[in-house]
C-alpha cells in the first residue's frame, strides 16, 4: 500500500503507462475534430469514434501532413496526464492519414499550401537540355517503370550515361530515400544535365511519397532540372506540379529527356546541305563575276591588238618607201590576234606566250632587221635620216648606215626620184 502525493502520482502514472503504451507499440485510430493551432507551434485536436473521444496534443513540426476536422487518422504517441489540468491527453509523435478520403483532402491542402508559396510557379521552371550527356535517375530498380524508361531511352538514343539512384518509391523509407538522393545529386550538380524522378501508377497511399512536402521541396531546390513522370496519364502528384518538366508516364519521361536519333541525324544532314547549297550559289556568283572580268580583259587585249595592227600599218606605209613588203607579216598578226581573242576565255595562261610572239614579230619589222637584209639608211651631217634626195646638196657629206657599220660618203649626183621601182 503506497500513499502518493498528487504530482507524484501523475509522474508515476505517466511513466508506467508510457512503458507499454507508446508510438512503437500502438496507434489509435479515429476521426479528427476541433483541430486548432496555438502560437503557430502547439496543435490541439480531439480524436473520436462513435462512442468515445480523446484529447490529442502535438507540436506542429512533427505533423508531416496537413490535418483537418473530419479526417480519419491514426495517431502514434503515448497517453499522459497534464499536471496543470489533471486531464489525460495523447501526446503525439506522428500522425498517419487513413483512407482515400483523408489522403485526398491532405493532398488538396498541401497542393494549395505549396502553390501559394510559389513552388509550382512556371517562371522558375528551367528548360532541360535537348541532348543530355549524363542523366541522374531516381527510381526503384525493381519496378516496371525502370525497365520501361530504359527501354524507350535505348530505342531513341545512345551514348548517354545514366546514374541510377536506387530508392524506395513507396513505404516508410521512400521520402527519406528520395530526399537523400536529391541531396547527393545537388552535391555533384555539375556532373548531371537532368534528373528523372519516376515510378509506376498506384493508389493514393502508394503515391504518398510523391505528394510529400519534403520531396516537393527537394525537387524545388534541386540545382539540376527535374523531369517527373508518375504512373499513368491521369495520376497527378504534387511532385508533378513542382517538376521543371512533367512527363505523363515513365515512358513519356524517356521521350522528353532524349531526342530521337533519327530526327537528330536528319537535322545534321539537312544543315550541312543548306550550307553546301548557299556556298555553291556564292561560288557561282563569284564565277559569274570572274567571267565578266575575263570578258572585259578580252576586250582590253583586243584593243591592244588593234593598236598593234594600226602601228604595223603605219610602218607598212613607211616601209613602202623602203620597198619593204610587210603584207604577209600583217596577216600573221591577224591570225594570231584572232587566236588570242577566241582563246582568251579558256587560255589565259597562254596570253603570255602570244605576246612574246607578237614582240618577236615587231622585232622583225625593226629597221635594224631591215638593214640586216642588205638595205642601208642614209643620214646627213645632222644625223637626220635622208629620205629625199632634195634634202642634201651635191657634195654634201653623208653617212651611210649599214647593218655592220657605217660609211662616210659625199654626194656625187642626185636624181630627184621619190620612189624606187618595186
Amino acid at each position, binding site marked *: 500500500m503506497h500513499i502518493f502525493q498528487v504530482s507524484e502520482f501523475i509522474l508515476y502514472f505517466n511513466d508506467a503507462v508510457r512503458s507499454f503504451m507508446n508510438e512503437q507499440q500502438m496507434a489509435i485510430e479515429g476521426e479528427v475534430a476541433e483541430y486548432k493551432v496555438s502560437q503557430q507551434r502547439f496543435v490541439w485536436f480531439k480524436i473520436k469514434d462513435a462512442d468515445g473521444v480523446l484529447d490529442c496534443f502535438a507540436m506542429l513540426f512533427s505533423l508531416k501532413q496537413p490535418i483537418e476536422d473530419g479526417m480519419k487518422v491514426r495517431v502514434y504517441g503515448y497517453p499522459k496526464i497534464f499536471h496543470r489540468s489533471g486531464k489525460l491527453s495523447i501526446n503525439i509523435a506522428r500522425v498517419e492519414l487513413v483512407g482515400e478520403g483523408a489522403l485526398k483532402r491532405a493532398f488538396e491542402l498541401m497542393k494549395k499550401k505549396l502553390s501559394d508559396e510559389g513552388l509550382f510557379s512556371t517562371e522558375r521552371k528551367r528548360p532541360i*537540355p*535537348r*541532348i*543530355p*550527356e*549524363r542523366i541522374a535517375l531516381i527510381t526503384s*530498380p525493381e519496378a516496371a517503370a525502370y525497365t520501361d524508361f*530504359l527501354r524507350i*531511352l*535505348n530505342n531513341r*538514343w*545512345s*551514348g*548517354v*550515361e*545514366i*546514374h*541510377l*539512384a*536506387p*530508392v524506395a518509391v513507396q513505404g516508410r*523509407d521512400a521520402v*527519406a*530515400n*528520395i*530526399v*537523400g*538522393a536529391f*541531396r*547527393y545529386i545537388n*552535391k555533384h550538380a*555539375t*556532373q*548531371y*544535365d537532368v534528373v528523372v524522378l519516376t515510378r509506376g501508377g498506384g493508389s493514393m497511399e502508394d503515391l504518398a511519397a510523391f505528394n510529400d512536402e519534403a520531396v516537393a521541396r527537394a525537387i524545388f531546390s534541386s540545382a539540376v532540372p527535374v523531369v517527373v513522370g508518375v504512373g499513368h496519364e491521369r495520376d497527378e502528384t504534387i511532385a508533378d506540379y513542382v517538376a521543371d518538366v512533367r512527363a505523363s508516364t515513365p515512358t513519356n519521361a524517356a521521350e522528353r529527356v532524349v531526342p530521337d*536519333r533519327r530526327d*537528330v*541525324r536528319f*537535322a*545534321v*544532314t539537312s*544543315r*550541312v546541305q*543548306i*550550307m*553546301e547549297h*548557299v*556556298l555553291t550559289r*556564292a*561560288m557561282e556568283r*563569284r564565277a559569274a563575276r570572274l567571267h565578266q572580268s575575263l570578258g572585259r580583259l578580252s576586250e582590253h587585249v583586243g584593243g591592244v591588238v588593234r593598236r598593234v595592227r594600226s602601228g604595223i600599218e603605219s610602218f607598212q606605209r613607211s616601209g613602202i618607201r623602203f620597198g619593204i613588203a610587210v603584207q604577209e607579216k600583217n596577216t600573221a598578226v591577224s591570225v594570231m590576234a584572232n587566236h588570242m581573242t577566241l582563246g582568251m576565255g579558256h587560255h589565259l595562261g597562254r596570253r603570255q606566250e602570244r605576246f612574246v610572239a607578237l614582240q618577236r614579230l615587231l622585232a622583225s619589222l625593226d629597221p635594224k632587221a631591215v638593214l640586216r637584209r642588205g638595205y642601208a639608211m642614209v643620214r646627213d651631217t645632222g644625223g637626220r635620216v635622208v629620205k629625199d634626195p632634195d634634202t642634201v646638196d651635191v657634195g654634201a657629206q653623208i653617212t651611210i648606215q649599214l647593218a655592220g657599220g657605217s660609211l662616210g660618203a659625199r654626194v656625187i649626183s642626185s636624181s630627184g626620184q621619190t620612189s624606187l621601182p618595186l
Partner: protein
Amino acid sequence: MPPKTDKKFHFDQAFTELEQITEWFEKEDIDLEEGLTKFERGLEIARKLKERLGEVENRVETIKQKFADVVEDDSVEETV
C-alpha cells in the same frame, strides 16, 4: 567521373553551334572566304555528331549510397 564542364565533347553544345553556323548561312549575301571557313567548321562538327550518333549503347551505373543519410564520402560503382 569527368565533370561535364571539361573539354569533353558535349553533344548539345556542338549541335547548337551547328545551328548557329547554319543561321549565318541563311543570310542573303555571304562573304565567300568567311563562308568557306565556317563551312569547314560546320563539317567538322557534323562529322563528330554523326560519330556520336553511331554509338550503340547507353551506360547505366548505380550510385552505391544509402540515401537515408547522405555522408561526405560517396562512391559510384559500375553495374552490368
